[in-house]
C-alpha cells in the first residue's frame, strides 16, 4: 500500500462538478498547494465547503466555483476577503450560508452516515429562511422543534498537515486541529498534503501519535508539499504571510489584478511558487501570528 501521489496525480483524480471540502480555518492551515493545483487545472463547476480564507476568494476569482457552502470567509487581520466579496456582489455564486457550528454538524452527519443531525442553531434567523432548512420534532416528552441540519457529503476533502506517511497516517502538530478530521470523515476521498512525507510514521515519529487527527482509512492520497500552507499559517512551524495576503487583497482593486496574481504568483507550477513569493527560507521564517 502506497498512497503517495504527485501533485499532478492528485489534481487528475478530481473531476469537474465535484463537492470539495477544504479544511483549515480562515487563513489558518489551508491546503494551499493543493488549491493552487486546482487553480492551474481545467476543473470547473465545483461546490466548495469551507471555513473560508483566501482559498475561497482565489477559487471564486478563477471561476472554479459554482456553489459555495460557508460559515464565513475571512482573512482575519484582513476581515473581508475581496474576491469572495466581488463574486457575491456580482451575484454569480450559488450559496448556502451556514452558522459555523452548523457546518461542522453537517460534516458530522455525513461522517456518521446520517441524513441529518438536529440542532437549535439557525432557528429564528435568516440562515434558516434562506437556506431552506427543514425542522423535526423531538419524539420525546419535550416535543421540541429543531432544525434538521442535512449531511454535508463531500466527494473530496483537502487537508494540509505537518507529516504524513505513505500508508496515510498523518500528524497535525499545531495547537488547533479545527474541523479537519470531520472534513476527512465526511468525504469519499481525502487528499492530504504534508510538509514532509515519510515511509512509516511509526519508524519516524511514534512519539507524536496523538497528533494523528484522523485514522488512515479516511486518507486516500498524500502529497508532499513543503510550506504548502503558504500564505496561510501553519503553527507551530510558520505564520501566515500578511504582507502577501495584503498584496493579494489589493490586487482585487486593480484592473486585471487577479490575472496578474494568477500568472505571476500562482504561476505554472508549484516548484517555482516558493521562489516567486520570496523563497523557502523566508517563508519558513514567517513569525507566528499573535492574537
Amino acid at each position, binding site marked *: 500500500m502506497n498512497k503517495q501521489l504527485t501533485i499532478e496525480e492528485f489534481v487528475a483524480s478530481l473531476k469537474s462538478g465535484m463537492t470539495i471540502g477544504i479544511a483549515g480555518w480562515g487563513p489558518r492551515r489551508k491546503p494551499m498547494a493543493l488549491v493552487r493545483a486546482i487553480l492551474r487545472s481545467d476543473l470547473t463547476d465545483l461546490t466548495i465547503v469551507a471555513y473560508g480564507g483566501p482559498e475561497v476568494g482565489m477559487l471564486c476569482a478563477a471561476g472554479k466555483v459554482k456553489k459555495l457552502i460557508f460559515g464565513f470567509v475571512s482573512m482575519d487581520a484582513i476581515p473581508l476577503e475581496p474576491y469572495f466579496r466581488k463574486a457575491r456582489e456580482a451575484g454569480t455564486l450559488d450559496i448556502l450560508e451556514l452558522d*459555523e457550528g452548523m457546518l461542522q454538524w453537517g460534516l458530522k452527519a455525513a461522517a456518521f452516515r446520517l441524513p441529518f443531525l438536529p440542532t437549535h442553531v439557525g432557528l*429564528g*434567523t435568516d440562515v434558516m429562511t434562506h437556506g431552506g432548512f427543514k425542522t423535526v420534532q423531538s419524539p420525546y416528552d419535550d416535543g421540541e422543534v429543531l432544525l434538521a441540519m442535512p449531511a454535508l457529503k463531500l466527494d473530496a476533502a483537502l487537508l494540509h498537515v505537518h507529516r504524513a506517511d505513505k500508508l496515510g497516517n498523518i500528524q497535525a502538530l499545531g495547537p488547533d486541529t479545527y474541523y479537519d478530521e470531520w472534513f476527512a470523515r465526511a468525504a469519499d476521498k481525502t487528499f492530504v498534503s504534508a510538509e514532509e512525507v515519510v515511509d512509516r510514521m511509526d519508524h519516524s515519529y511514534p512519539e507524536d501519535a496523538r497528533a494523528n487527527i484522523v485514522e488512515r482509512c479516511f486518507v486516500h492520497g498524500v502529497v508532499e508539499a513543503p510550506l504548502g500552507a503558504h500564505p496561510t499559517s501553519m503553527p507551530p512551524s510558520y505564520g501566515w504571510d500578511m504582507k502577501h495576503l495584503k498584496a493579494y487583497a489589493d490586487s482585487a482593486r486593480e484592473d486585471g489584478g487577479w490575472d496578474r496574481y494568477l500568472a505571476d504568483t500562482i504561476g505554472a507550477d508549484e516548484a517555482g511558487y516558493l521562489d516567486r513569493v520570496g523563497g523557502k527560507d523566508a517563508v519558513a521564517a514567517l513569525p507566528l501570528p499573535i492574537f
Partner: protein
Amino acid sequence: MTTAPEFTLCEQLIVAASEAWRSNGELVATGIGPAPRLAAGLAKLTHTPELMMTDGEAFLVEDPVPLGPRGYDDRKAAGYLPFSRFFDAAVWSGKRHAMVTPSQIDRFGQTNISYLGGTYDQPKVQMLGARGFPGNSICHINSMFVPAHSKRVFVEGEVDMVSSVGYNPARRTPGVNFSRVDLRLIVTDLCVMDFGAADNAIRVVMLHPGVTFDQVQEATGFALEAAGEIKTTPAPTAEQLAIIARLDPHGLRAGVIKDNPAGKRS
C-alpha cells in the same frame, strides 16, 4: 489625596462594558474587538475572577492576554479550548458570554454581520457571513459594543439579514425552545442600554455625562424606552485605568472611537 485621573471616553466605555460580565460565574468571556476584549479582561481582574478566557487561539488563560504585539509564548496556558471544541464546550453548552460589534442591530436585538442591502443571492455589500451568530444567540448570553451610535447601526425595521436571534415575536417558530436567548447590555459611545422594558424592548439605562436621552433617540432608528431612573455612566477609577493600560500596552484603545475623545466626569 491623589488627583482624580484623566481618562478617555473609550476607557469609560470599557469600564461600563465590563459590567456585562459581573457575577456571570464560570463561563467563557469573549470580547471581540479591542474594547470588548479589554472589558472582559477588566471584569476578570476585578469583580468576576471566576470568568474563563482564551488567548485568542487555542488555550484558556487565567491572566488575560494583553492586546497587540508580544512574545508568542508570553501567555501561560491553564487549559485548552481550541476551535475544534468550541461549539461542544462553550457555545452549544451555553458556557459563554460574548460581546460583539454587529453592523446592524434592530429594536428586537436581532443583529446582522452577513451582508448589507440587495438580496441573499446578490448582496449590495458582502460582509463576513453569519459566522457563529445564529448559534451564539440561541445558546448563550450576548452583549454588544457600538463605538459609533447611529441610525446606520440601530436600524429602523428589521436588520437586512438576521444573523443572530433576538426577541422578535414574528420569528418565534412554534415549538422551538428560545429560552436560552439572553441579551444583556449594549454599550455605545452615547449610552448603556439593556433589554429590560416590556417584551424585552431595548431600554436606555445609563447616559454618558453630557448626553441627553433625546440625543440617543435621535441617533436611533426605532423608538427607545427610558428606564425609570436613568443613571450617569461613572468615571473609571485609578485602579481600573491601570488595569486597562496594562492589558493594552500599545494603546490600541485610542483607535476605537473616532478622534479618541476625553471622557467626562458627571
